């Protein structure tokens, strides 16, 4: 087997995550899907790292994790405060983006 298959897997997971973002209304699930996408990217990075024989890809994946952690923290905080205010975690409730 060629490690390229990991890439295909990453692509598949990424796509599933993206579709999830689009079809779910629960902000928490949407968030999870984003995490899934990030993880798919990480898998791709790690695989690239292996394919190219250097560790830079892993470093990037590491940073991605850190950033993802920060993002999760802030994102969940936002969800919690939105929930407190609106008693709902549905992303469709915030449809104020039109005139």
């Amino acid at each position, binding site marked *: 087997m060629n490690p390229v298959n990991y890439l295909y897997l990453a*692509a598949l997971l990424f796509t599933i995550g993206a579709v999830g973002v689009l079809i*779910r209304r629960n902000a928490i699930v949407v968030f999870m899907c984003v995490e899934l996408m990030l993880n798919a990217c990480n898998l791709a990075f*790690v695989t690239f790292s292996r394919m190219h024989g250097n560790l830079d890809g*892993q470093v990037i994946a590491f940073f991605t994790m850190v950033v993802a952690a920060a993002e999760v923290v802030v994102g969940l905080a936002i969800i919690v*405060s939105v929930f407190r205010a609106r008693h709902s975690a549905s992303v469709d409730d915030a449809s104020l983006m039109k005139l």
Partner: protein
Amino acid sequence: MSANLAAYATSSGEAVQFWVLGTVAVVGALCTILMRRAVHSALCLAGTMIILAVFYLANGAYFLGIVQIVVYTGAIMMLFLFVVMLVGVTAADSLKETIKGQRWWAVACGLGFGILLAAGIGNASVKEFAGLGVANSAHGGNVEGLAALIFTKYVFAFEITGALLITAAVGAMVLTHRERTERAATQRELSEQRVREGTHVPPLPAPGVYARHNAVDIAGLLPDGTPAELTVMQTLRKRGQIRDVSTEALADLKALEQRSEERLGRDRDEEEATR
């Protein structure tokens, strides 16, 4: 892991592992987006992440594999679960789509995107790959190798992400923390207020009174069989997560009476029979 400079295929063991775990990962991902309850989604996602951790390890990223389990599956997913609990673990999403055409567009775009991405990978991929043997052993191991990179080449990025983390932590606190603008009322003041208002001078009733279940989300029943919402804690009340069991309870009661009637009847019959 072979230390060859270039290889054309991984070991067959890894291949088996990939196909088996890969399938599971995809199923987990699909479950993540298809489960109605957030908590199930979270669990599926955690499973997928663990599998990814295994893949990291298989790809020679030992440090990342461990970090993935510890940080992601351990910390981040727990955070998710925590928030899910906070928001309501039993609340199930309706999977009915409200925006017209959204789902079809999403799936169509997803399909197109996926196919194109795969096509791109297929287009760009090379047959041979380098492997991490040399890189991992250059500084004496994977962790040392990463450390050498992070603290030299990527030191600024590292510092910046550190700052980002701190900022995120502070931000989360600011977002969720509500500043108390006035002194909290003491217990004494609270009770005085209750007396003044004349409502519920005694403590609130516990859910157990007249209750048939000892769960906190089920209101106690009043003598006429209707639920008393006061008996449920405020948080659940606000969330609307009171389980109304009044009809159920009444039905149960009726069934019980009937059963006891029968039992009594049978007893009477027996008595009469013995008599």
